[in-house]
Structures are given as structure tokens and as C-alpha cells.
């Protein structure tokens, strides 16, 4: 079975600094794939490369077997890739529900003339879109915050809206960049359960996360980065015992 996401010797240089230095790994369908490493290891850069916000300076990224070099972010999204952002990039003036509705963009096949004429099918389609968005928000536990502008939501709530927005695209591959940062333990539990459930439904997840317990609990495979290089890869139990990983995290000579 071919990998849903494949990185082959990917490089990204920022003004002489190798943020990603020949990283290679694969994410298979239905897999929750953890991507961990110390600060500055290049995790977020990889997410940006996969979602097309950055272009690699070397190597290749394939999504569903197709090389994505030079593809604009919206084209990559159309391949079934959705993401969240480490520093939360919601549309602040929009309500939670409207944020999620934007996430449904690619799934909506409506006709502009019908809409401009205000024909019933267009209205019905929009009703369905709204209902789906509400259902997604309910799934992340925000059913009573749907009408609130997201800028007024708490940090944890905003992260959940972002996850719902990414899920709204029904992505094949979900890129989550530190989805639990700033959340309380109860919220973290809920997100862990959600990730597991999403994977069970057949979505693949690439998870960048600092919360090691969460990663150990939900991931099938973990890739560990340090200074842009892959230093270990495998199931959680194996990675946790890898001496290179321990050194990287605890410091000391590598």
C-alpha cells in the first residue's frame, strides 16, 4: 500500500540555517503519526512544507503518490490535506461556526448563478453546510459557543475550533501543529479521544506535539527530529527507549 504522505530527503534552508536537513518518512492511511523533537527541530517547518506555505529547497514531498513541488497551498488542500496552526490562525472576526464553514470550502459544489438568483437549491445547500458545521463544533464540545466570534473564545476553545475547521474539509491527511498547547488536562483528554476517533474513521494524522504522554497514547508511529534530521522512527515504545532520542531531549553530547 502506498504511503499517503512521503517525504524524501526534504531540505529547507533559511538564510544558511538548515531548518530541515534531509528528512525522510512516510505516513500511511489511517495512521496517527507523531512528529516530535526539541524546539527548533524543524517540525513546524515540515508542516508548512507539506501544506505548501513553504517550498522545500531540496528533496521531494508526495501526497497520495503525487509530487507537490510548486503546488500552491490551495491545490495541496484539494489533494486532501488540512491543517491547524501552532500559533492559531482562525479568522478572528468570524463566529466559530463561520470559521468551520470556511473549512468546508472545497466540499461545497454550488452554482454561483443559482446563488445570485437566490434559488431554493442554493439555500438548501447552505442550510446543510451550516448543519454540518454545527455538528462538527458539537463534536469538539463547542455546541454552545457556535455564534461567538472566535476572538472572544478562550485559547483552548480556539484550538478546538481550528481542529473542527480542519476536519470540515474531510481531509485524507490532517496536519495538527501542537493542538493541545495551552489546554487544560480535561481538554487534552478530549482532543486525544478525538484524534483516535478521527483516525479510526480513516483519516491520517500527522501530529506535532510537545505533550509526550499524548503522543505516546495516540500515535501509531513516531518520527523524532533533531536539528532538521530524523534521528529515530518507530512505534512509541521503541522510540521512547532510543538512546539518541533521550540524549536529544535531555541534552548532553549527541
Amino acid at each position, binding site marked *: 500500500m502506498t504511503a499517503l504522505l512521503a517525504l524524501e530527503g526534504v531540505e529547507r534552508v533559511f538564510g544558511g540555517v538548515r531548518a530541515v536537513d534531509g528528512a525522510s518518512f512516510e505516513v500511511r492511511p489511517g495512521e496517527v503519526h507523531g512528529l516530535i523533537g526539541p524546539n527548533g527541530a524543524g517540525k513546524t517547518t515540515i508542516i508548512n512544507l507539506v501544506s505548501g506555505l513553504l517550498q522545500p529547497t531540496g528533496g521531494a514531498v508526495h501526497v497520495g503518490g503525487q509530487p507537490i513541488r510548486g503546488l500552491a497551498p490551495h491545490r495541496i488542500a484539494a489533494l486532501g490535506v488540512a491543517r491547524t496552526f501552532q500559533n492559531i490562525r482562525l479568522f478572528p472576526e*468570524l463566529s466559530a461556526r463561520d470559521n468551520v464553514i470556511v473549512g468546508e470550502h472545497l466540499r461545497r459544489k454550488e452554482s454561483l448563478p443559482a446563488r*445570485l438568483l437566490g434559488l431554493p437549491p442554493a439555500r438548501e445547500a447552505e442550510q446543510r453546510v451550516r448543519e454540518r458545521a454545527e455538528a462538527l463544533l458539537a463534536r469538539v464540545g463547542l455546541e454552545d459557543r457556535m455564534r461567538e466570534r472566535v476572538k472572544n473564545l478562550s485559547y483552548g476553545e480556539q484550538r478546538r475550533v481550528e481542529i473542527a475547521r480542519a476536519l470540515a474539509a474531510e481531509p485524507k491527511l490532517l496536519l495538527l501543529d501542537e493542538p493541545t498547547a495551552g489546554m487544560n488536562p480535561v481538554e487534552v483528554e478530549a482532543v486525544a479521544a478525538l484524534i483516535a476517533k478521527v483516525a479510526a474513521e480513516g483519516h491520517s494524522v500527522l501530529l506535532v506535539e510537545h505533550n509526550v504522554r499524548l503522543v505516546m497514547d495516540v500515535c501509531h508511529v513516531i518520527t523524532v527530529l533533531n536539528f532538521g534530521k530524523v534521528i529515530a522512527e518507530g512505534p512509541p515504545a521503541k522510540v521512547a527507549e532510543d538512546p539518541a532520542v533521550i540524549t536529544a531531549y535531555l541534552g548532553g553530547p549527541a
Partner: protein
Amino acid sequence: MEWLQETYLTYQSTLGYIGLNALLALSVYTTLSCGQLALSSAGFAAIGAYAASILTLNFGQSFPVALLAATALPMLVAVPLGLPVLRIRGVFLAIATIAFGEVVRLGLVNWDYVNGAQGLVAIPQKTSVWMIYLAVALALLLLARLRGSKWGFALEAIREDEAAARTMGIHTTVYKLAMLVLGAALAGLAGALEAHYSFMVAPNGFGFVRVVDMLVFAVVGGTVAYYGPVVGAAFLTVLPEVLRELAPLVGIEPGPLRFLVNGVVLLSVILFLPNGIVSLPARLRERRRARSVTA
């Protein structure tokens, strides 16, 4: 009854110009609605005004044909303009489009066929006030219908965070270009209507000052709602006439002080009503609620 007629006759041109300015303000708003400050509308209005006037004056074409051409030609220009320019962001986009507008104006100044700075005169008056308001109504309907649709949400998303919108699969360039083209159409139509309303067109009517006026209409009215620019255009078009009325009562002579009031009004709106006049009712309600809570 007589009073009513007198008032209508006195202010009919103001009424017409409210509509024309509303169209022009909407033409700036279209790109603002997806977060892009493009100041090309005066250039597009010039293209529309001249295209229509040349057709009616020199080629004996009917008014509908002229209006159609005046709407279509700026759209055709907007595509090759927009493709390179819309990659530029923020203030730089504004500057690039100001440059475009100046090039259009200077082109007209140097074009002997259209009499250079003297412009085209004795243009038949074919625009009626109802036509202007029909155009405004159609534009508003279009924008209202976009709201809440797939396309409307995409525009809001681009305005709020362009990069994030792209990762949702939104082809931002297409949307931005579409709004620039729509704005160009509105500006061109407004230009043609104005030319056939005021008997003449000249390049100086389409300079930097004019496009700044359009932007100011949109911002003072408020760009959070699609009808904000119309409210802003109405307010600022009526303001000089109100000042004309009030000036003798407070002893202001026609002249610079009237100009000063405009500046002060604009500054106050920007500082104290950041979302424009249309946000005033909500603001007042909020304040009343705040007061009742503290009391």
C-alpha cells in the same frame, strides 16, 4: 407641495451624486472586502467614462451599448492589471494601483483625440437618477447575495488571514482578481453614468484626489457591511450641502473652513468609530447596555 418640489429640484444633483459616489465607493469596497487596498477605481472610472462618451459622441452608439462597453472595458483591463499587482500586499498594492491610476490620467491628458486636459464636452445627458439607483441596487443585491455563500465566506476568510485561507483550499488569487474585476465594472459604469449626467468628462476628475474620496466614502461608511460604502457616500456627499446650509447661521464664509470640517469629520470617524457609521447603532446599544449594567 411647492416646498417639496423646490427641495427636490435643489438637491436632485446631490441625489444623483450620492448614487454615483456610492457606486464608486462600492468599487473600492469590493477589493477591501477581501482585505486588499486597491486604489485603481479612479482609473477604471476614467476608462468607463471615456469609453462611453466616445461611443455616444463620436460613434452615435446608443446609451445601453455605451454603458455595456463602459462596464466591460475596465473589466478587461483589470485582469492583466490584477494578475501581477495582486501579489503585492498592503500599502504597496495601494501605491502600485495609485501609479496605475496616474498613468491612465496622464495618458488621457496627452491624448489629443479626447482633447487632453480640456476633456470631452457637450455629452448628451442620458442618465436619469433612477438608472443610477438601479445600478446601486443591483450592486448591493449582488454583494448581499454573496454574503453567506461559499464565495462570500471565502472572501471574508481571505480578508482575515490570507495564508490560512489558502490552506482551506481557497484559490485566493482568483477571488482577489474577481473582486478587482467587479470593482472595475462598477467604477466603469459609474464613470459612464456620471459622464452622461454632468455633460462632460475631463482627466482631472479622475486623479489621486478622486480615488482618495472613494476610499474615504467606503471607510467612513464602514467596510464591515456591504452597504457601509453606500452610507458613507451618502453622508459625505450630503455633508457639503448641509454645511452650505449651516455656514451662514454660524457665520462661516464659503472657503477653507468648510474644508476643515470635512477633515475633522473624517478623523473623528476613523478614531472613534473604527467600523464606520454603520456600526454606530450597535455602538450606542452597547454603550447603553454598559451603562445599565453599571447603574
